[in-house]
Structure formats: C-alpha cells, structure tokens
C-alpha cells in the first residue's frame, strides 16, 4: 500500500519536473509551448549519448542535460519563440506542434526509432525495505532531486530579485522596461530555465519512462493535464497536481488494472468540474 504511494510520489515528482517548465512558459510568459516535450526528449538523448557513447557517469549527465537543453532553449527563444509572444494562441500552437514533429523526425533520423536504454550506476539499482515499504533506489533518487529543485524554484521565483523582475516583466512589460528591467533578457533566461528543467526531467526519467522519438507526443498529454489541473499562476499548483496525478495513476493501475489508464483523466475531469481554473488559480483572471 505504502509502496504504491511511494511509487506514485516518485512518478508525480518526475511529472512535475517535466511539466513545470511548461507551467512557467504558459503561466508566466503566456506562451503555449506544445514543444515542451521535445526539450525533455533532448535532455534524455543527451544523457543517452553521453553515457552510452562516451561512458560519462550518470551524475554528470544530469547537469549536462540541463545545460545543453537550456542552451537549445535559449537559442530557439532568441531565433524563433521571441517573434511569437504577441501572436495569437493558435499561431503559437501551430508553430510549436510543428516544432514537435521536426524534433521527432530529427530524433528518428539521428538516433533511430528504437527505445533507448541507459544503465544506471549500481547504487541506484534495486530496492530496500524500510518499515515494510519497498523503496526503489532510483525512485528515491528522483524524489530527492525533484524535491530539492522544487524548493529552490519556489524560492527563486518568490524571494529573489530575478523572480520579482520576472513577475514584473510578465504583469506589465512596458512599465517594467520603463523601470530599467531588461525584459527580453529575463524572458530568455526564464525560457532557458524551463527548457533546462524539462531536459533534466527527460534525463532523470530515461530509465523509468523510456525514451524514443515519440516521447514529446506520448507525454504531451500528461504535461497538459498537470498544467490544467494545477493552474498556471504559481508552481505550487502544478506541483500538487503532479503529485495527485502521479499517485492516482499508479494507484489506479494497481487496484483497477482494467480501468487503470483512464483514472488520470477521470481525476482531471473531476478537478476541472469543481475548479474550472485549476486547483490553485488567481481568481478573476
């Protein structure tokens, strides 16, 4: 029972890291970026290439996945995304879904269509029992990393100068510019951060979720659910939503394997009926 809860939390944490970048771009920058999963996939492939071709340790691959994806994100922001901030949501959706298909084909061409496998270091394999709860080491690792990231992210957005500049830039770009805040720099950095987090999630999840060129589409629906259920006004919302969905998904598949795959959608529908703007939303938006 508690093992299921533990697995669900690990899965939810992973979903959160994968999706929180999307909630930042969507919530704070008001940009519908369906290509978010492509960044996660990029992070996963960076890990696979570094580990399997160059034999680099898994622990170094995680920051590498973060920075490489963040760089890709920044480059794309400057060259492409920036032009679409003012465009309608439909244009943004069309643009980013096009990017998804390009990413899928590129991954298929360069890496092949098969599942990519990585071998985690020995200390992350297997599991141990703690008070009768079976705890998988790799899942515990995922939980610890994600929890630390969540706290750091929350502090960065609410307590630092960068965080308040970002919120100011989003709320009223013109006034923020007038106060000497470089809005475009802030947006590049934020976008890079969001992409980097997705990349990190992809790297962490490569072992648990698998990695193939269809990754961006396969998980797009999960990202969207996390963001819609959680609301886009803070990162606490998506965090709670991701945990809820992770636990519901895992528990549903355990207790009701026949209906397992649908539980997550049922939860989403219920939440949206009760709170149409998500669990935590700023009222009156």
């Amino acid at each position, binding site marked *: 029972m508690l*093992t*299921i809860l533990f*697995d669900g939390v690990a*899965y939810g944490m992973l979903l959160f890291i994968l999706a929180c970048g999307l909630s930042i771009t969507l919530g704070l920058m008001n940009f519908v970026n369906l290509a978010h999963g492509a960044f996660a996939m990029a992070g996963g492939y960076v890990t696979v290439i570094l580990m399997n071709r160059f034999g680099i340790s898994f622990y170094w691959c995680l920051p590498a996945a973060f920075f490489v994806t963040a760089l890709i994100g920044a480059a794309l922001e400057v060259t492409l995304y920036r032009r679409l901030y003012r465009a309608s949501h439909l244009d943004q959706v069309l643009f980013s879904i096009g990017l998804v298909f390009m990413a899928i084909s590129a991954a*298929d*061409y360069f890496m*092949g*269509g*098969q*599942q990519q*496998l990585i*071998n985690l270091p020995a200390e992350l*394999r*297997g*599991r141990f029992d703690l008070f009768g709860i*079976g705890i*998988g*080491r*790799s*899942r515990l690792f995922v939980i610890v990393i994600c929890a630390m990231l969540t706290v750091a992210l929350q502090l960065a957005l609410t307590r630092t100068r960068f965080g308040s500049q970002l919120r100011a830039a989003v709320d009223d770009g013109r006034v923020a510019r007038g106060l000497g805040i470089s809005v475009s720099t802030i947006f590049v950095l934020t976008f890079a951060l969001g992409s980097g987090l997705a990349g990190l999630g992809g790297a962490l999840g490569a*072992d*648990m*979720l*698998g990695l*193939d*060129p*269809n990754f961006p589409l*396969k*998980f797009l629906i*999960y990202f969207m659910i996390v963001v819609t259920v959680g609301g886009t006004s803070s990162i606490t919302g998506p965090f709670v939503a991701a945990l809820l969905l992770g636990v519901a*998904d*895992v*528990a*549903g*598949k*355990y207790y009701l*394997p*026949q209906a*397992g*795959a649908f539980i997550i959608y049922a939860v989403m529908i219920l939440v949206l009926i009760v709170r149409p703007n998500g669990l935590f939303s700023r009222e009156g938006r």
Partner: protein
Amino acid sequence: MITRRHFMASAAAIAMLSVAAPSFAADTVKIGLILPMTGPFASTGRQVEAGVRAYMALNGDTAGGKKVEIVLRDDAGTADQTRRIAQELVVNDKVSMLMGFGLTPLAMAVAPVISQAKVPAIITSATTSAIMSKSDFFVRTSMAGPQSAVPVATWAVQNGLKRVVTLVTDYGPGHDIEKGFTDQFKKDGGEIVEAVRVPLQNPDFAPFLQRVRDAKPDAVFVFVPAGVGSLFMKQFVDRGLADAGIKLIATGDVTDDDLLGAIGDPALGVITGHFYSAAHDSPENKAFVQQVKDSAKMRANFMAVGGFDAMHLAYAALAKTNGDTDGTKLINAMKGMEWTSPRGPISIDPATRDIVQDIYIRKVEKKDGELYNVEFSTFKKIHDPFVAK
C-alpha cells in the same frame, strides 16, 4: 537511410527502363517489400530488410530463371499507407508478390488488395491468428499466433511453476498470447493466479509489477512488444521480483536478440520460448548471422529471419513454377513447402498457409562476453493452436 534512397533511385530507374524496353520486364520478377522503415517500429523494418538482403547476398538474385528485384517502400507503421502502397505496387509496379507487414493491422489492411489482384503476400512479422483467414493469398514466415507461448506453458508446469500471473500488453497479439498460454497452462494443471493487461501506451510498469509481486506467484508470464520489453526487464529486476522468488518466463520478444546487449545483465537467466535465437547452432544460422552482421552491422533477430525465410519461400515458389508469376500458381507452390531455415526445420501448412515450426525454450546466458538466448529444449512442429486443432 542512404540505402533506402539509393533504392528508390534504382527503383525509379528500373521503372523507366521497363517503359523503354518492355521485353526486359518479362525476365524480371518484382517483389514489393512494405515495411515500417521510419517511426516507432523502424527496428522491425530494418531487421526484415537486413534478412531479405542477406538472403539475396547468399543466394544470388535469380530464381526460376528470372531476375528478382526488390521494391522497398516505407509505410511508417500506418495501415492506410500500407494499403495505398500495396495498391500502387500491384497496379503501377506490377509486382508479382508482396512481402513485409510489420504489425497485424498493416497486414489486415492489404487483404482486400491481394485477394482482388490475386497477388501472394508473405507476412514476415505480424503474428496474430486472425490475419490468415482474411485472404487466401496470405502466407506467413514469422510466427502463427501464440505459437511460442504454448510450449512455455507446458515447460512451466513440467518444471514446477504451478501458480503463474500473466502480464500482457493490451492489444491483439497480447490477447492471443494470453489465451494461448492460459489454455495450455490450465490443461496441463497449472493455476493462473491473475491476468494483468498493460495499456499499449504505458509509461511506467511500476504499479503492474507491484501487483504481480503482491500476488506471490511462482512465476510471471510476460508478453510485451520488443522495444518496451527491455524497459520492462529493468523494472522487473529493480523491483526485486527475482529476489522475491518470482521467475520470469516469457515469449522471445522480451529478450529480442537485437536489444539483449542493451538490456544487459538484468536479463541473465530469463527463460523464454521462441522460434529463433541468433545462437541457434547450425551452419545455416551461422552463415545468416554473419551475413547480417557484415552487411547491416547488427545482430540478426527473429524479424530478420522472418524476412530471410520469406525470400526463400519466394525463390522456391518461383523455382517450382519455372518462373511463372501467376499469383494462384505461386501460392499453390508455396503450400506445403518445407525447408531448413536458420531457425531450424520449418514448413508451410498447406491448409492454413501458416508456418509450422519448432519452438525452443531458451535461457539468457553470457557467451564470449555477449548475452545470448541459449536453446536447451525443443518442442517439435508447433502449429497455431487456435486454428490447427
């Protein structure tokens, strides 16, 4: 990719040649090969193509006095494409035979085309029982339904694994295999503790594996598509099911030769039943594995052998008809054909046009630093349990 592009170019060149010199076409037999060369099932396509090419490299390109020409097309694993391509190949390219079909729905989609045009289609990969009844022009060289699952059931009971949980992916072949295993297992006196079905688009096996663990069976019988199989294996080991005394028995898809190296040591000791292993000890197999390794730079798996045997069947049928490419004559020539494949002795059942083959029980072991499915027990001449009673 490059080979495919070359291929298209040469196919186009030949198309033009045949316009210029119609007499040339009469000496050439074209075989349309439809495979998923891109998309999630691309590995199937690459393996089958490698098998087909290996056969031509080893046996030349003439059969029944005619030059054999392969026209390879990519359907990316979508059924409407497969059907369209099949139609084009039959109508425009005038192919005498079709070959390939990575998945059941892809094979199903061409049934009306081949029935109407009377063109034999050799299935190299798709396995569900239901396909064969859809057209009298289907022949199969991959596997007939749950052929590989039934001997595993018998083996399990004989070896004291009486309480088993089945875990299959929730789609056509999964249902076939589950039923095939369960029927035989119960007949032999085993008990199915629980039957778990995993969605096809499933990101995480954790809850299902935990369920298996809590049911405390002697063994878990697994069928999942090859690519996902490796992911499954890892989670199986990580969750400590092996330590809890639960044995993993499966069809050979889980320990696919092509992926076994990447799964690594967690796969050691897994028992599977299947029709082909790259470690099969025969001169035919050694030549085949070596050829695939040299030309395609990979280890041949059961998909490649399906392609290899499809080519053999096409060649042998052409030899029997003395190069006559009439569809009905070809399909009749194929019925009852027997030969020694790299996988061992096989034949085509004249009644069902389906493959009859030996199923081997294998264990994953390390040989020369690489992992192989080492065969240790053989069940002779297995038919599709659902059709050939």
